[in-house]
C-alpha cells in the first residue's frame, strides 16, 4: 500500500505525525440515555430536564432501548465486534454541569469492540491510496449539561437540557498520518452515521465533536508522547489542530523540550492550541460498575433486528454505482457522500428510468450529471427565488425525458427548470408555451443546411479537401440560421451526409 508522505519539516529533519481520534456523536433518539426527557436541540434552558437528569435524591437511571439499538447498528456499520454483554460504569468527578457527580459511561466492557472504516484515495488531498483506519471501540455514555458564563456578572448559569443525552464515543486506533487522512476519516464516519441514522452529524450544533490525539516521531520510530485536544467541532478545525499541534511539538522537541501528555484546547480565532490541564492534575475518575444498572445483555432477536434495519452503506453503494450503474468514480463518490444527495438521485433515477422505459443503468449517467451539476447550478443561480416544494422528482424527470427525446436542448432544459422552480408549472407545458423546444424536423434543417452550403462554396471545398475543423463552422452557421433551436445531433448527422 502506498503510504502518505505527509511530513513536518523541522530544523533537524523530517517528522511524521501520528493521529488518533475520539469522536463523540450524539445518538439520534427522542429521549435521553437513561431518562424520558426530550432531546430536541435549541429548547428553552432547563425545559427538557427530568428528575433523573437533575439527579434528584433517589432517582434511578433506566436504559433507553433505542439508544442502545443505535449504538449497535453503528457498530455493525463499521463491521465491528458487537458485545452481547456489556456494562455501564460510573466516571466520577465534580462539575456544575454534571448533576450526578458522575457520568455513566462504559470503560471496562464497551458495547462495541474493534471495527474499521475505509477512507478513499484522494490524490489532490494527499491521500495516495485507499486506507483502512482501525476503530478500537464504541461505547455509550451520557452527555453533560452546559454552563453559561455570560448571563450574570458574578455567577454562572447551568442548562441541563443536554444533561443525560446519549453519546457514542467512537475511538479510532492511532492509524492516521496526516491532517487529510483525519479529515477524510471524520467525513467518512459522519457519512456512515448519517446513513445509519444514528447521529445527525451536525457539527455546528455539537452533535458531533472530536478529541484529537496527536504525537510526532521520526518516520518509523516508536510513538511519541501524545496530547489530546478536546471538543473540536469541525473537519476544518480537526485538520488545523493537527497541523498546529504537530508543528508545536516538533518545534518544542527541536528546541530541546519534551512533549507533556496533557489535555489541550483549540482556539479557532488564533488558530492555536493551548494547555488545559496536564497529567499531574488530571482527575482520578474512580471508575466502577454502576450499581444502579444491570449488565446489558443483547439477545439474538435484538441483534438480528439491528442488522436487518441497516441501509445500504456508503462503500457498498459506491461500488454499486460504479459497477451496476456504470458511473465514473468521481460521480459515484459525490453522489454517495451525503444522504440527501443519494436519496434525491435514487428517486429521480427510478422515476426517469420508468418514464423512458429504460434500465436504471442506461439513464444513470444522465441523471447523475443532472443531479450533480446541472440542477445545483440552476438552484444556486436562483438562490432564494427557487421554490423548493416545486423541485419534485416528477418535474425533474419530465425535463430529462424531453432532453432524452431530443425535444429540448441542454440550454432549454435549464431554462425550463428555472421556470419550474419559480412557478411550479409543468415542464412540458413550459416547453410548449414558452417555445423552449428545439427543431428536430429534418426537412426544415436540411433546407437551412443547403442554404449554408450554397452560401459558402469555398469553405465546402476546403472541408472536402481535408480541413476537418471546418465542420464546426457549418454546425454554427446552421444553428444560427435556426435561431439555436435545432437539435444539434440532427444537424450533425445531416451535415455529415451532405458534406459526404
Amino acid at each position, binding site marked *: 500500500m502506498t503510504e502518505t508522505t505527509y511530513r513536518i519539516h523541522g530544523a533537524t529533519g523530517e517528522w511524521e505525525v501520528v493521529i488518533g481520534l475520539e469522536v463523540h456523536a450524539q445518538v439520534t433518539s427522542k429521549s435521553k440515555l437513561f431518562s424520558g426527557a426530550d432531546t430536541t436541540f435549541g429548547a428553552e434552558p432547563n425545559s427538557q430536564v427530568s*428528575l433523573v437528569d*437533575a*439527579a*434528584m*435524591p*433517589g*432517582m*434511578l*437511571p*433506566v*436504559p433507553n432501548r433505542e439508544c442502545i439499538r443505535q449504538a449497535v447498528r453503528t457498530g455493525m456499520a463499521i463491521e465491528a465486534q458487537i458485545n452481547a454483554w456489556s456494562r455501564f460504569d*460510573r466516571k*466520577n468527578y*465534580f*462539575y*456544575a454541569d454534571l*448533576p*450526578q*457527580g*458522575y457520568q455513566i459511561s462504559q470503560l471496562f466492557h464497551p458495547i462495541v469492540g474493534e471495527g474499521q472504516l475505509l477512507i478513499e484515495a484522494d490524490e489532490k488531498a494527499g491521500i495516495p491510496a485507499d486506507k483502512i483506519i482501525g476503530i478500537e471501540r464504541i461505547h455509550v455514555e451520557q452527555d453533560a449539561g452546559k454552563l453559561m458564563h455570560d448571563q450574570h456578572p458574578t455567577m*454562572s448559569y*447551568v442548562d441541563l437540557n443536554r444533561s443525560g443525552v446519549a453519546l457514542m464515543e467512537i475511538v479510532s486506533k492511532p492509524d492516521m498520518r496526516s491532517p487529510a487522512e483525519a479529515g477524510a476519516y471524520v467525513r467518512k464516519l459522519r457519512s456512515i452515521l448519517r446513513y445509519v441514522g444514528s447521529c445527525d452529524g451536525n457539527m455546528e450544533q455539537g452533535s458531533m465533536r472530536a478529541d484529537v490525539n496527536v504525537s510526532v516521531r521520526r518516520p518509523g520510530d516508536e510513538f511519541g508522547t501524545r496530547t489530546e485536544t478536546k471538543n473540536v467541532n469541525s473537519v476544518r478545525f480537526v485538520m488545523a489542530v493537527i497541523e498546529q499541534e504537530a508543528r508545536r511539538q516538533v518545534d518544542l522537541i527541536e528546541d530541546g523540550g519534551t512533549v507533556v501528555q496533557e489535555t489541550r484546547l483549540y482556539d479557532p480565532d488564533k488558530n492555536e492550541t493551548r494547555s488545559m490541564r496536564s497529567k499531574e492534575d488530571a482527575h*482520578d475518575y*474512580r*471508575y*466502577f460498575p454502576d*450499581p*444502579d*444498572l*444491570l449488565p446489558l445483555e443483547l439477545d439474538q432477536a435484538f441483534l438480528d433486528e439491528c442488522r436487518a434495519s441497516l441501509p445500504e452503506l456508503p462503500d457498498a453503494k459506491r461500488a454499486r454505482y460504479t459497477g451496476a450503474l456504470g458511473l465514473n468514480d468521481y460521480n459515484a463518490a459525490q453522489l454517495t457522500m451525503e444522504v440527501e444527495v443519494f436519496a434525491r438521485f435514487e428517486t429521480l433515477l427510478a422515476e426517469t428510468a420508468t418514464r423512458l422505459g429504460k434500465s436504471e443503468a442506461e439513464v444513470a449517467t444522465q441523471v447523475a450529471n443532472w443531479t450533480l451539476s446541472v440542477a445545483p447550478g440552476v438552484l444556486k443561480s436562483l438562490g432564494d427565488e427557487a421554490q423548493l416544494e416545486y423541485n419534485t422528482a416528477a418535474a425533474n424527470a419530465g425535463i430529462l425525458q424531453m432532453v432524452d427525446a431530443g425535444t429540448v436542448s441542454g440550454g432549454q432544459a435549464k431554462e425550463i427548470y428555472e421556470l419550474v422552480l419559480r412557478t411550479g408549472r409543468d415542464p412540458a407545458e413550459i416547453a410548449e408555451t414558452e417555445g423552449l423546444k428545439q427543431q428536430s424536423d429534418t426537412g426544415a434543417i436540411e433546407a437551412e443546411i443547403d442554404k449554408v452550403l450554397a452560401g459558402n462554396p469555398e469553405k465546402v471545398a476546403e472541408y472536402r479537401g481535408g480541413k476537418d475543423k471546418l465542420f464546426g463552422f457549418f454546425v454554427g452557421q446552421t444553428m444560427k440560421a435556426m435561431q439555436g433551436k435545432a437539435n444539434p445531433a440532427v444537424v450533425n448527422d445531416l451535415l455529415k451526409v451532405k458534406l459526404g
Partner: protein
Amino acid sequence: MSSDLTQLGVKAIRDGVADGSFTAREVAEVFNANVAAAAALNAFIVTTPDHALDAADRVDADRAAGRPLGSLAGVPIGMKDLFATKGVQTTAASHILEGFIPEYESTVSQNLWNAGAGMLGKLNLDQFAMGSSNETSYFGNVISPWRKTGSNAALAPGGSSGGSSTAVSARLVPAATGTDTGGSIRQPAAFTGITGIKPTYGRCSRWGIVAFASSLDQAGPMARDVTDCAIMLGAMAGFDPKDATSLDLPVPDWAGSLNADMRGKKVGIPREYRMDGTDPEILKSWDDGIAWLKDAGAEVVDISLPHTKYALPAYYIIAPAEASSNLARYDGVRYGLRDLPEGAGLQDMYAATRADGFGDEVKRRVIIGTYVLSAGFYDAYYNQAQRVRTLISQDFENAFTECDIILAPTTPTAAFALGDKSDDPLAMYLNDVFAVPASLAGLPAMSVPCGVNKDGLPLGLQIVGKAFDEQGVLNAGLAIEGRAGFIAKPEKWW
C-alpha cells in the same frame, strides 16, 4: 377504648376498621396523640398528622360508600426519612438535605398509600442510613424506649432504622418502613423487640429512596409481628420499571400463605456464626430457636458458610465505594444546602457545602469509598471485595442445597448504651457481623424477637432464606414467634 387502639398491630387495625369496630380516623387520632407525646424519644424528624387523618378519612369514606378497601386500609404508619415523600421534607437525617421537599413520591411509599395507609411522620435514622445506633443523625439521637432493668441510661435503638424501631416498639406507630443495606432493618428490630424483614434484593423498588449503596439497599417493613410484616411487605413490593434492578416477578400472597408448620423443612445452622466472644445469652437464644423449629417439625442440619469472616470487610469496601459516588450529587448546585463563602468559586462551594452538610460518619465513608476506588487501589480493594461477595453468594447457594432456611442470631449483643461505641467505628461496624452476609448475597432475611436477656432487653433471631423465598422466611419466623411467646414491651417513661 381509644387508648387501647395503639396496642393493636396492622392486621387488627385493618380488620377492625373493615368490620366497623372503630373508624380509621379514631385510629389516626390516637396514634397522632402518641406521636405528639413522645418527643423525648426523638423518633420523628417531622410529624404529619394531617397526612394520617386525610388517609383515614378517605378509608372511612370508602367504607361508608361500600368501596373495596386496600390491604392497609386505615393503618397509619411511620415513614423512614429516607423515602422521598411528595410535599413533605425528606432529609436522610442530614443537614445537606434539610428543608428539601420533593415533588415526587417514592414508589414504595406510593404503594403504601395506594393500599390505604396514612403517614404519621418521617422517622429519624442514621444520617444517609450510615450507622448502627442512630447516633449519626443531624437531628439528634433516637432514644430507645427500652431501658436495662434498674437503669435509666439511654440505649441505642439500633440503626440505621432507629426511628422506625423505636416508634414501633413504643407503640407510636403500628408499623414503619425501614431500609436495610447491611442490617439496618434487622439489627434495630432485634434491639427493640420487634419484627423486621429485608426482602430479596429487587423486591421493593429503590425509586425515590435516597441511595446509600445501590447494590445493597432494600426497603422492608418493621412491625410488631410476622403477620403484620407479611401484610405490609405485600403492599410495599412489586416490579417497578423505573428501577432497572427491580425484580419483574409477581408478588405472592405472603400473608395469606403464612404457615408455621415446619415439617419437611430443613433448617441450616451455620457453624461459622458461632464466633468467639459472642454473648452467651445470644448463643442461648439461638439454641432456643433451634429447639422451637424442631418442635415445629423442622429437621436441623449443620451447615458451613466458610467465607463469613470476610463479609464485613468486603461490605465496608463495597458500601462506602458506592456511597462515595451516590452522595456526589449533594453539591449545593441544585437543591439542599449551599454554603457559598464570600468570593468563593465552584470548588470552594463544593468543599464548604459538603464539609458543613455531611456528618462525621458520612464523611468517613465517603473518604473510605473514594480511597478504595482510586487509581492504584481499585483492584486491591474494590475488585477483591467483589470477588469476596461472589464467594459469599456461593456459600449460601451451596448451603441451600442442604437446607431450606438458615437460622442465626441477628446481632452479637443486645442493645448497647448510646455513646458506648460512637468513638469506635470498628466496634460499631462489628454489630452487623451476622446481618451483612445476607445483604451481600441479596437474600431475604428477617429478625424475630425471641426473648429478653438478664437485663430485660430484647434479643432477636435471624432467619435467612433462598432468593425470592420470603414465604419460607416468614413461615419460620411465625413458627418461632408462636413458641417464643415474646410479650415484653418497654415500660413507658417518656
